[in-house]
C-alpha cells in the first residue's frame, strides 16, 4: 500500500538492476534476430561492443576513439565551465537584485527555446575554426539550466539567513558568496547536472563546425559511410561519459553539502 516505503535490500536491488539490463539486451538481440530492424542499422550488441573495443586502438577518421573522446571532452569542459562561471554569479545576482532580474529575465526566457545547434552558423562566422565556435554552441546548451537553477535556488533561500547576515553587517558581495551561494548549492548542482547533459548533447552540433576530430564528428562520419557499429560506439561513448560526468557532479554535491546529515 505505501509503495514509497518499499525498501530493496542489496540483493534485490542487484537482481532488479541486472534484470533490467538483461531484458534490454535481449530485446536488442531479438530485434536484430527477427529482422525487425535491418542489421545494417542495428548490429548485434556484441558486434557493437567489439567495434567499440576495436576503435579504442584502431584509428577511425584519423584518430582512435580515445582521441575523439579527449578532444570532445576538452571542448565540452571549456563550454561547460564558462556556462558555470557566468551562470552561477549571474543567477545569484538576479536573486539579489530586482534590476538585474528584470533586465535579464525576458531576454533569457525566450532565448532558451532556441536550439543550441541553431547557433552553429554564428559560431562559424564569429570564431571560424577556433575553439570559440564549439564553446559557443555548448555554452548555449549548458547556460540556461545553470542560470535558472541558481536563480530559483537562490530566491528560495530562506530569508532568515539573509536577514541574519545583514544583521551581522554583511554587504552585497558577502551575501552572495557566503549566504546565497552555499545555501543554493543543491539547486545549483541539479542545474549543473542538467547543463552537463545538454552541453554534452550540443557537442555533436558543435562538432559539425570543426570536422577533424571528436565523438560527434566520428558519428557523423560513421553515418555517412553506413557503419552503424561506429555510430553506436559513439552513442555508447557519449552515454558512458555523460553518466560519468553525472556521477562526478553528484559526488561534488555530496562533498559540497558535507555539513548536512546524509
Amino acid at each position, binding site marked *: 500500500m505505501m509503495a514509497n516505503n518499499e525498501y530493496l535490500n542489496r540483493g534485490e536491488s542487484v537482481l532488479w538492476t541486472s534484470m533490467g539490463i538483461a531484458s534490454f539486451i535481449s530485446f536488442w538481440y531479438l530485434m536484430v534476430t527477427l529482422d525487425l530492424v535491418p542489421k545494417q542499422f542495428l548490429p548485434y550488441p556484441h558486434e557493437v561492443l567489439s567495434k567499440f573495443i576495436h576503435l579504442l586502438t584502431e584509428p577511425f577518421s584519423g584518430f582512435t576513439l580515445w582521441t575523439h573522446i579527449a578532444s570532445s571532452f576538452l571542448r565540452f569542459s571549456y563550454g561547460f565551465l564558462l556556462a558555470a562561471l557566468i551562470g552561477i554569479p549571474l543567477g545569484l545576482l538576479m536573486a539579489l537584485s530586482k534590476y538585474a532580474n528584470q533586465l535579464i529575465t525576458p531576454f533569457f526566457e525566450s532565448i532558451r527555446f532556441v536550439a543550441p545547434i541553431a547557433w552553429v552558423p554564428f559560431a562559424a562566422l564569429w570564431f571560424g575554426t577556433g575553439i570559440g565556435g564549439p564553446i559557443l554552441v555548448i555554452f548555449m546548451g549548458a547556460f540556461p539550466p545553470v542560470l535558472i537553477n541558481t536563480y530559483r535556488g537562490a530566491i528560495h533561500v530562506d530569508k532568515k539567513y539573509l536577514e541574519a547576515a545583514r544583521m551581522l553587517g554583511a554587504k552585497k558581495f558577502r551575501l552572495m558568496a557566503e549566504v546565497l551561494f552555499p545555501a543554493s548549492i543543491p539547486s545549483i548542482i541539479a542545474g549543473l547536472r542538467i547543463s552537463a547533459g545538454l552541453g554534452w548533447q550540443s557537442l555533436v552540433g558543435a562538432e559539425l563546425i570543426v570536422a577533424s576530430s571528436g565523438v560527434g564528428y566520428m558519428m557523423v562520419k560513421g553515418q555517412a559511410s553506413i557503419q*552503424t557499429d561506429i555510430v553506436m560506439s559513439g552513442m555508447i561513448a557519449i552515454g558512458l561519459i555523460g553518466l560519468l560526468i553525472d556521477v562526478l557532479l553528484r559526488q561534488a554535491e555530496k562533498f559540497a553539502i558535507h555539513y548536512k546529515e546524509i
Partner: protein
Amino acid sequence: MQGYGNGKLYQHILQSVILVTSGFLVSSSLGILLGILMGANKKIEAFVNPIFLTLRPIPPLAWIPLAIVWLGLGNSAKIMVIYVAAFVPAVINSFTGVRSIEAPQREAAAMLGIGRLAYYREVLIPGALPFIFTGLRLSLQASWTTLVAAELVGATLGLGSILNQAAQDINPAMILVGMISVAISGWLMTQLLAKAESYAMPWRA
C-alpha cells in the same frame, strides 16, 4: 512577408507548433507515467534506471538515422527525435515529485486506510504535480530546442527547416527571424502551460 523555404512564415510556424505539440504530448504522457511508476516502486526504478541513465546523455541528433530507418521521412520520425529529448525531463521530474511527497502525508494516508489505486489518485499524483509541471516546462523547452534536429529529417516546412536552410544559405537575417519565431512560440506555449498549471493545482493559488 515574402515566403522563404517553400512557405510563408505562418505556415512554417504552424508546422513546427504541430510537431512540437505532438512530440511534447507523447513524451510527457509516457514520461510522467514512467516517472511515477519509478517513483512509486523501487523495483521498477532499479529495473529501468541503468538503461535510462545511459541512454539519457545521447543527443537527439544521434537518433536521427535510427528514426529514419524505423519511421521513414514523415512526421513520425521527427516526433520521435523530439520525443527522445523531451522524455527525459518528464521522467526525472515526475520521479522526483513522487519521492518528494513527505512521510507525514504518506503516513496520514496509510493511517486513514486508503487503497492502492486511491493512493495513486489521491496522494501520489496530486502530491507530485508541482514537480510534474516543472518537468513539463523543461520538456516543452526540450521539444523546441530539438526542432532543428528533428527537421533535419527531410522537412519541407517548419521553423527548424528555415533555420537549417538559412544556415545553408549563410543568411543571418533569416536565422534571426527563425530564432525569434521559435523564441516567441516557445514563450507563448509556456504561458498556456502556466494556465493549465494553475487550473490543475487550485490549492497553489
